[in-house]
């Protein structure tokens, strides 16, 4: 079995059998010809497997799905239109109206929107807890709880979750733990090795690294027992006959892949948030260099953090590798290669000074994304997390002065020079502005 660096380049991709092409071809087709009528019927009925229609599966997407599954140590994956589509697909596959989720309160703003504002309209409620408070996770469990959900590194304050402890509580409650590992990627952590059951990524970020397409990946460990007593009671979508597919009981059809089967056979079929093959191909190009890029991202970040730490105009720096970070010990346990290249810090200044800082950066692009080869910056309180209340912002570790950086692959000296110049400009604005 190959190591991660090798899998990043090869997993899922062989030379094209039809042409010998070494690079993965882009199968830009909506549909696939059947061998004969029996083959067509067998494919539709899952008696045989193969490609039918690119909303359900596509050869280029399948390479990407295998690659991320291999990197995560999972059994398989589904490529979808975005990270948000991956989160939605997982939730609607596992539960319906009347269900409940326990989630970390330190989430990407888009995930928070879905859980806090949108899903209640469909009868799914969420209780938010501090990610580090294992007792709070346990206390939030209700009879109708169907999922624990958090991020490997809580956005944007880098609040960590004690994965093994929270997974144990989830499993006591008979529900899976799903983690968003977008900011860490399998290069920095493989959550399945610590007890998580499902992982998803916004592949728009570090996995592709170039910020050119939107995509999401949902990966299953194949470990959760949907047919245990609690599993049967909690997850009839997987453990009871599904009239929408010949009374198939997905967990009997596949002992390991029931969740992904239902995701594909119902979720992609009915909700349709599939990934375009061109997007899959773009993301594959990025993953080939994931290990070397992540190593550089982490190295650059450490240099930038060291610079900011010594700057008098910078207050708190929310990076778990710093000893003063509240989750430093967890970071050492779960992230031996480094944590991430996305972190936030607080300016010792006014909102106007924060604005001046961002406006005076030259290399850092001001935009709503992270995990690009290019360094990025944003002000979360006014953008990505603007819909959260002041109280919720505070609990997620976000202040009016919080600046989020995503450190890219440029020369660290140039990045530090850029930050130094912008900090100086912000200081000149003065606190009264």
């Amino acid at each position, binding site marked *: 079995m190959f190591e991660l660096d090798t899998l990043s380049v090869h997993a*899922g991709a062989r030379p094209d059998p039809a042409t010998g092409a070494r690079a993965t071809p882009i199968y830009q087709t909506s549909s696939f010809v059947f061998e004969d009528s029996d083959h067509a019927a067998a494919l539709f009925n899952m008696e045989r497997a193969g490609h039918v229609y690119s909303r359900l599966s596509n050869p280029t997407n399948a390479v990407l799905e295998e690659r991320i599954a291999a990197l995560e140590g999972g059994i398989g994956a589904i490529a979808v239109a975005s990270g948000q589509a991956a989160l939605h697909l997982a939730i609607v596959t596992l539960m319906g109206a009347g269900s409940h989720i326990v989630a970390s309160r330190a989430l990407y703003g888009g995930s928070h929107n879905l859980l806090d504002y949108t899903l209640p309209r469909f009868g799914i409620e969420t209780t938010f807890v501090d990610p580090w408070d294992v007792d709070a996770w346990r206390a939030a469990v209700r009879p109708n709880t169907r999922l624990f959900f958090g991020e490997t590194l809580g956005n944007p304050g880098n609040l960590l979750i004690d994965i093994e402890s929270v997974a144990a509580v989830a499993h006591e409650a008979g529900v899976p733990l799903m983690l968003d590992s977008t900011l860490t990627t399998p290069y920095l952590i493989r959550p399945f090795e610590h007890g998580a059951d499902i992982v998803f990524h916004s592949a728009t970020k570090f996995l592709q690294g170039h910020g050119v397409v939107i995509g999401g990946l949902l990966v299953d460990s194949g470990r959760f027992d949907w047919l245990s007593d609690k599993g049967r009671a909690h997850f009839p979508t997987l453990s009871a006959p599904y009239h929408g597919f010949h009374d198939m009981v997905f967990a009997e*059809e596949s002992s*390991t892949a029931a969740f992904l089967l239902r995701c594909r056979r119902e979720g992609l079929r009915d909700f349709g948030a599939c990934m375009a093959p061109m997007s899959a191909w773009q993301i594959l190009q990025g993953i080939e260099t994931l290990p070397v890029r992540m190593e550089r991202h982490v190295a650059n970040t450490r240099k930038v953090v060291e610079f900011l730490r010594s700057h008098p105009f910078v207050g708190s720096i929310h990076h778990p590798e710093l000893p003063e970070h509240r989750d430093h010990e967890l970071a050492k346990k779960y992230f031996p290669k480094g944590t991430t290249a996305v972190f936030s810090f607080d300016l010792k200044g006014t909102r106007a000074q924060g604005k001046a800082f961002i406006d005076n950066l030259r290399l850092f692009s001001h935009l709503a994304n992270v995990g690009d080869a290019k360094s990025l910056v944003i002000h979360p309180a006014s953008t990505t997390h603007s819909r959260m209340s002041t109280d919720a912002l505070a609990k997620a570790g976000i202040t009016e002065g919080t600046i989020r950086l995503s450190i890219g692959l440029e020369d660290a000296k140039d990045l530090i020079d850029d930050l130094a110049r912008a900090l100086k400009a912000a200081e000149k604005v003065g606190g009264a502005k």
Partner: protein
Amino acid sequence: MKLTVNGHTAYAYTGTRPLLQSQPTAVFIHGAANDHSVWSLQSRYFAFHGWNVLAVDLPGHGQSDGPLCTSVPALAEWMAAFLDGLAVKNAVVIGHSMGSLTALELASTRADLVAKLALVGTAVPMAVGDALLDAALNNEEKARRMIVEWSYAPMGHIGNNQKVPGTWLPGNSMALMRRMTKGVLRNDLAACKAYLGGLDAAAKVEAPSLVVIGERDMMTPPKAAQAALGALRNARAETIRHAGHNMTVEAPDAVLRALWKFANA
């Protein structure tokens, strides 16, 4: 479906179809530390094409309770009890790896149950190295990795499994074995190694037989299947090109074609 065998719950996948007396029956028996799901892409096709399907979970595997069978003859006795419980006779019995030894023993001891015999990924006797047995006893994860290493054709470790899109087969094999209770893998491997009466059993089998060989099988290499082929009175072989030991998932269509042709001949 579930039924009681020897006082314990036993499970068999039927392709979600009812068993009909008017139909022939195909029985699928999985290998060591596996379950019925390794046959998904053969058994479901049979079930929707006029066959009763019984893809069993052996005792202590998957959804079947009960103590593990510690020998191949004991597995065959359990299979006989299972089929007797359903009044099934003259079935096409198909086994993979440890399941192939079970099917062989069943065919030699209960000819009334086995109209045809298909051995997929077989070796008689089935050598199991001490290093693997030791790992299965002391470090199951290491043993699982060894098995996965040897169970796929060389390119299987690269992937590109377009037959089951999105599935990473080596990871899936690891996950399936991890679902077994501690000790199941060691028990099964030891049972395979200890079964030394396979060629005598094969000599007693009169049922038409098929030996399905994975061209790149490292667990039960093609040459290891030759002894069984020679001992069986009425056997032929079919080789699955480019496939390793886990050919039911690695080359599902080719295995299905071989089994379908044999069962319906």
